[in-house]
């Protein structure tokens, strides 16, 4: 069997996030990767350098009299020990969107085609380089919005999730093998007889772990998709100043959601490692210069789709009917009340607000003087990392929708085990749901289960008369 995939053509893409940092990488993968690079590179003969070396040189544009485009370092990695198991070239160039795009264009006009999103990973998977759970982690990595998200994805890539799941599966397998021994060797006296009580204990134990993992899923989802955050408040309380502070230039990632109007811009900000997806920032901005016309109706819409509400109140004025309405509307949502304009004398009914939202969720700020804003950031991070969801023992976070769905199914299989035992079903029937749980967990890691059980059986017990 050929080690590289002849079916696949050669693909290229910019593999660093756009707009960031000093260096950008253009990655090329496929059978013609060497051909492409030798056509556009001036320096050492890359065909003769050892694999997995990095080489200094220049990229030229053959279509434009070999004009020098950029000074680069080129990594040469030959199949099969590469990410995709194909020949891979990585061109490290001097960042900057224009220069990087130009190099990509030159690569594309010299024999490569533009890679689809995730196509490198797809090849890594199809060429047998990584397992299912890992390939999904890479996809999450590509989508990761902040360093924290990146860490969650990287953890999974290392196989932390796989490791955890495999441990769970092994624990289940031990019990299952024991149940099978009891069935297939009823007279064999050396295997513990698995009673429904033992099975119940095991089911509960595994259930607790799965539940723990699912808790992290909520957190993981936020890390991946961003915490939907609405900034609400009546006109002129300082929403836009708070927003502008959060949207501090170097943190903001602005994505234009395709197929929607500019009005529904989603803006991501990184607040102490928590990616916030700010809702309806356009709405706030738009009305910034004029008399604000955002009614409670528009706030209500934002609140409904938010995981977190930042409710801004003017501390220099008593609560208005509109303030009270907003307080009532956010009653069931995780919220932080920002008492803005503390540079002015306080007039708000503080005790009433405290009673409604609790001490710890009130932050006093003066957006004008940039006062109290770091306290706000800390509060957001704390809400998320400490109070929101406990960290799991191994810092594994489940971020992938497929995994979450499988874990939920596993949980309900375990509930079936527990209910079955409660209603007096014998072990070998209850075991059906236990096996189901084991299979579901196996689907997360993409593990094969062929014959595993039997191997377990015969390695653990001295069977046969």
């Amino acid at each position, binding site marked *: 069997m050929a080690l590289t995939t002849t079916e696949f053509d050669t693909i290229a893409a910019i593999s660093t996030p756009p707009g960031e940092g000093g260096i950008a990488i253009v990655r090329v993968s496929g059978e013609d990767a060497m051909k492409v690079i030798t056509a556009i590179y001036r320096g050492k003969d890359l065909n003769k350098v050892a694999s997995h070396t990095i080489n200094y040189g220049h990229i030229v544009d053959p279509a434009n009299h070999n004009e020098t485009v950029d000074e680069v370092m080129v990594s040469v990695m030959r199949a099969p020990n590469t990410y995709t198991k194909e020949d891979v070239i990585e061109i490290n160039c001097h960042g900057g969107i224009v220069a990087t795009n130009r190099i990509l264009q030159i690569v594309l006009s010299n024999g490569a085609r533009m890679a689809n999103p995730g196509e490198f990973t797809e090849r890594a998977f199809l060429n*047998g380089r990584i397992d299912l759970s890992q390939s999904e982690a890479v996809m999450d990595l590509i989508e990761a919005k902040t360093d924290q998200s990146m860490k969650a994805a990287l953890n999974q890539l290392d196989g932390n999730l796989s490791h955890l799941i495999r441990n769970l599966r092994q624990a289940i397998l031990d019990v299952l093998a024991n149940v099978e021994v009891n069935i*297939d060797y009823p007279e064999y006296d050396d295997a513990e007889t698995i009673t429904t009580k033992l099975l119940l204990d095991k089911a509960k134990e595994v259930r607790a772990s799965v539940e723990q993992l699912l808790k992290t899923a909520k957190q993981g989802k936020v890390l991946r998709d961003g915490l939907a955050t609405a900034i609400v408040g009546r006109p002129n309380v300082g929403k836009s100043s708070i927003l502008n502070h959060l949207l501090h230039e170097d943190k903001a990632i602005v994505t234009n959601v395709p197929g929607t109007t500019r009005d529904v811009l989603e803006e991501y900000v990184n607040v102490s490692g928590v990616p916030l997806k700010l809702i309806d920032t356009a709405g706030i901005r738009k009305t910034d210069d004029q008399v604000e016309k955002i009614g409670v109706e528009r706030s209500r819409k934002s609140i409904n789709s938010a995981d977190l509400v930042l409710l801004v109140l003017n501390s220099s004025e008593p609560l208005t009917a509109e303030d009270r309405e907003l307080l009532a509307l956010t009653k069931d949502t995780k919220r932080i009340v920002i008492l803005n304009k503390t540079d002015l004398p306080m007039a708000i009914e503080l005790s009433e607000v405290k009673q409604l939202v609790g001490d710890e969720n009130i932050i006093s700020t003066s957006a004008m003087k940039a006062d109290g804003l770091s306290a706000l950031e800390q509060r957001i991070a704390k809400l998320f990392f400490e109070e929101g969801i406990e960290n799991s023992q191994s810092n594994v976070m489940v971020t992938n929708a497929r995994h979450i769905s499988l874990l939920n199914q596993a949980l309900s299989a375990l509930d079936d085990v527990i209910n079955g035992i409660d209603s007096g079903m014998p072990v070998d029937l209850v075991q059906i749901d236990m096996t189901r749980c084991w299979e579901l967990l196996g689907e997360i890691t993409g593990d094969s289960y062929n*014959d595993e059980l039997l191997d377990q059986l015969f390695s653990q017990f001295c069977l*046969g008369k």
Partner: protein
Amino acid sequence: MSEIFSHVKQTYQGPDYDVIVVGAGHAGCEAALAAARMGNQTLLLTINLEMVAFMPCNPSVGGPAKGIVVREVDALGGEMGRNIDKTYIQMRMLNTGKGPAVRALRAQADKHAYHRAMKETIENQPNLTLRQGIVDSLITEDGVCKGVVTNTGAKYNAKTVVLCTGTSARGRIIIGELQYSSGPNNTQPALELSKNLEDLGFKLKRFKTGTPPRVDGNTIDFSQTTEQPGDKEVNHFSYETPDSQYLELKNQLSCWLTYTNEKTHAIIRENLDRAPMFNGTVEGIGPRYCPSIEDKIVRFADKDHHQVFLEPEGRETQEYYVNGMSTSMPEEVQQNMIHSVAGMQNAELMRPGYAIEYDVVDPYQLKPTFETKVVKNLYTAGQTNGTSGYEEAAGQGMYAGINAALRAQGKDPLILKRNEAYIGVMVDDLVTKGTNEPYRLLTSRAEYRLLLRHDNADMRLTEKGYELGLISEERYQAFLAKKAAVEGEIERLNKIRIKPNDEVNQFIQEHGDKPLQDGVLASVFLRRPYVTYNILKRFIPEPAKPLGRRVIEQVEIRTKYAGYIKKAEENVEKLKKMEAKKIPENIDYDAIDGLATEAHQKLKQIQPHSIAQASRISGVNPSDIAILSVYIQQGRIAKTK
């Protein structure tokens, strides 16, 4: 030994047959009876007529999974169930404390009576000829099997041939340093056939199995052992055997339990250099589930004792089978081992245990009908296919015999699926995975075991047996009546409402439950763990006709476990969807990169028919299946040789 001094110089033409079955062990007997009963002129050849349906190893039939196969063979119209019902000396239901899917019937057999009864049935079967003879080679033309040639020069033509050679194919017995060419129980081996198969292109493997020593019951002190009697409750293997024929407990024979000890283990350890299993003499691969005692001592060194069951071999013999001490140690070591065990201090060794090596056809070379891929119209079954166990052999013999018969008649084959029968599980396992050790059926191999119960084998397979002509009209009518009674009663229980009266509530409260507030359906009431059908009867009107024991059993199981049964049936539906994803026959696995090396080899070797079958091949991982599915969907498959 078994040296051939001269071969026949001349062959002669014997009669023509429709089906020839080679070997009259547990596979061969079922194959030949099925073919003959389906109306084919059938020849059953065996090396030694004294070996028809002989039990060279343990004197018992049934047990977990195996017992269900016996019932399946019976439901298809086979003989094993009826034959053991005629000749058992003890009957026991195992796993009675567990759920309905895993209850297992096991009988101790009078091995001599078992052989005689089966031989008699075969002798009296119309269309069937039983003859002694060793098959040396197959007659083939252009890859099609046309008959066999025996060592005495007889040539028999046939439309199809079934090979059930057991452990006779190039059999070699090993006892300590002694090795000789032999079939089971010191019979003559088949020395020529294997070479002929290899010449035809078959890949053969070497497997090993073994048997323990037999001792004289007159010299066993049973008082030092624990008695294991049979059951009082009536049970039979065959759906035809009437309850009235059940042996009273006092007429059954007991087995006896004792244990090995540190002394036994020390004797074995001291002599490991003389153990063929460990000094390199034995080359064949033995079964993990039926290990020799020396194997157990080495692999599980921390265990200070192992169970030993002393089982009578029949009513007219004092020979006892020392179950749990299978060994190929030198004879005097075997004697010392035996004498170290409680109850056997003075036991006389009657026959030493031995290991036997033999040739098997690696079963990935078979189609799902058990016809070989290499030679058309040739079928194999039993130990030839790498299995072990009388029941596994009988199930396969039945299956191969039916398919050989159907082919001879130009009819479509019978395919049993994983969700229909343990036989189907076994067939699919063998042709899909091959086997690296003698294959034994275990309930854990069946993913739908709740559907494959021993109590419903008739419900699953009688219809098929009847269509094949293997079930009599009388039995079929009885089956239809039972089925109607079961379904009628289940339906009735779904309509009767039990009202919350004092009698019911007192009963419920006695079992620690809350009294009924509203009426409850009889079927729902029956699902309570402490309610049986016989209890339920107290609270509901009598059925129109009194129900038999086996009807009640069905009603109870199908009502009590309805939820789980439904789940299993849903899984079967999923399987069917995967089965529907066919893999084109002309697929070129070399053109699919990205498959793991092992998966690539296995897929190429086994040539699965569907994605479902491919996913069951060991060494083919879900990622390989994903790649395969992607390629098939993308039409990249078109690139064929």
